[in-house]
């Protein structure tokens, strides 16, 4: 079959994840089209984080299929997901606070100098230069590249985690609560960054409690409730008040 323009970047078919008797995710299907931003919302315990962990290769699903660019994939580790160009920014960001920005950017994928391949000599200069260039390119201001991550603000950390994923050529960026711990201004600048990422053609799946943010960023909204897709909505058709009804279960559209 010839490749079509409309092959979704990511497709979930009946994905279930059970922890013993707990059906955290119980048969979820939806697609993330190329260049689309999909919002995943739902009450606490709805299964959002679990679903994110399945997509990012953290837990294998109990049943169901995962398709990337139309091809079925099975992930046995986060590295597998990353090799399929799915990058995840976790709620806790997965940054090493004691290391500097460039070290975190290249964590696990360090650059080495030519003569030092065998002893794995780090090319710190090249890593710093490339990290700086990438941050400049997507407009993130980190005045001091020698600063360790624990000296940076929450918004800067989130931006670093996001730009690290973009840098590694992700086609699908998965964000779990990217603004949960941020102030108003920082939330706005991270939202702006996500908009730029979507505009550059990357598909995004975003989990957030902030309904206004979801409406602002997404074209499609998937509401999870007790492990199933309760509603699938067009962002342009709904208001924040509607979404609250879907989340709490007093309205449904599936």
């Amino acid at each position, binding site marked *: 079959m010839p490749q079509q323009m409309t092959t979704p970047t990511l497709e979930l078919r009946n994905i279930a994840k059970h922890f013993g008797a707990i059906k955290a995710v119980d048969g979820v299907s939806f697609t993330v089209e190329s260049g689309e931003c999909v919002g995943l919302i739902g009450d606490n315990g709805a299964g959002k984080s679990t679903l994110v962990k399945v997509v990012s290769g953290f837990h294998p699903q109990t049943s169901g299929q995962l398709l990337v660019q139309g091809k079925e994939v099975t992930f046995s*580790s*986060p*590295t597998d997901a*990353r090799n399929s160009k799915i990058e995840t920014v*976790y709620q*806790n*960001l*997965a*940054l*090493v*606070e*004691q*290391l*500097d920005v460039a*070290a975190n950017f290249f*964590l*696990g*994928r*360090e650059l*080495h100098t030519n003569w030092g391949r065998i*002893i*794995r*000599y*780090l090319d*710190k200069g090249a890593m710093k230069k490339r990290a*700086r260039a990438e941050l*400049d*390119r997507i*407009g993130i*201001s980190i*005045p*001091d*590249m*020698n*600063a*360790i991550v*624990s*000296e940076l603000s929450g918004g800067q950390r989130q931006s670093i985690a996001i730009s690290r994923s973009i840098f590694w050529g992700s086609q699908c960026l998965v964000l779990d609560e990217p603004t949960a711990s941020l102030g108003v201004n920082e939330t706005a600048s991270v939202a702006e960054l996500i908009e730029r990422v979507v505009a550059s053609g990357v598909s995004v799946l975003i989990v957030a409690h902030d309904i206004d943010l979801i409406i602002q960023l997404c074209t499609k909204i998937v509401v999870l409730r007790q492990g199933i897709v309760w509603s699938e909505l067009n962002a342009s058709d709904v208001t924040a008040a509607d979404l609250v009804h879907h989340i709490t279960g007093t309205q449904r559209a599936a």
Partner: protein
Amino acid sequence: MTSNENAQRDSRPTEIFNRFRSATRGINTVVFPTILCVILLSLFSDKFFTVENQLNIVRSASVAMIVGVGQVFVISARQIDLSVGSVLGLTACLTGFLVFDGVPIILCFFFALAVGFVLGLINGLIVGYLKVPALLGTLGMLVLVRGTVQELMYGTYHVRFPAEFVVLGQGDTLGVPNLVWVAACVVIVGHFVLTRLEYGRFILAIGGNAEAARIAGIKVRKYIIISFIVQAVLVALAAFLLMGRMNSAHPTLGQGLELHIIAGVILGGTSLFGGVGKVWGMAIAMYLIAVLENGLLLAGAGFFWQQILLGFLLITSVAIQIYRSKSGKIDM
């Protein structure tokens, strides 16, 4: 902000200031009063700054420096190795048998390193595979290995090794004690490995945030096991040199060493919470401890005072680190 403004912000003076700040970030504040004590000691004794006295002090610190490099790796990875003293004792006593059997010294040397390798591997497997927390796993090994060497020697000890063996630990090369040469090499290589090589970067990443390291594809367990092996092999190297230096090997050799090592590593700025390792800081701290011990000795205060000093340094340097991590952002 545009990249242009960014470039301006990075002007030379700021860059130099930032570099200075990142270089001094890990210094443990206890170092400053310790340095003060050393200066006071030096004022009371006109012999203190003589080359001979300095070389003596560094020589007495060199075993601690060699073992300390390994412990910097282990603690940076958010682990700890309490078994170093026992590993030192067992390696020395086992190697002693070979030396007296007339085995060539070079083979004795590799035998000692192999003993260290095996004991380090056991530590690593206990922590990595059995999931016993390092504090308890290596405490178990401290007792187990010490029991083994006591049983093996059963009240005896090795003494008066062949002269060509003794010279390794007691001799000089170019006017500097062999022990000091070896310690200097180990410290320089250790610093290089921790700051420049991928292995060091992985150790720091694992110690700082093991989950993030795992997500980044770093094989956490493998590198933790390697760090325990490096520690024990360096202990074995120290054991080999110490046998010559003392011209004997007792089953009690190395008893209480762990306290000395850990005090020096923490005083040197390595973080007890992982993710920050300072090889140079450790070497300086070991030197300072040796000076204080030397000073106490000169002042007529004996071994028990040295123990009081070490215990005190350990507690204060850990307390300072905990205080700073609260005012900083590391949570516990």
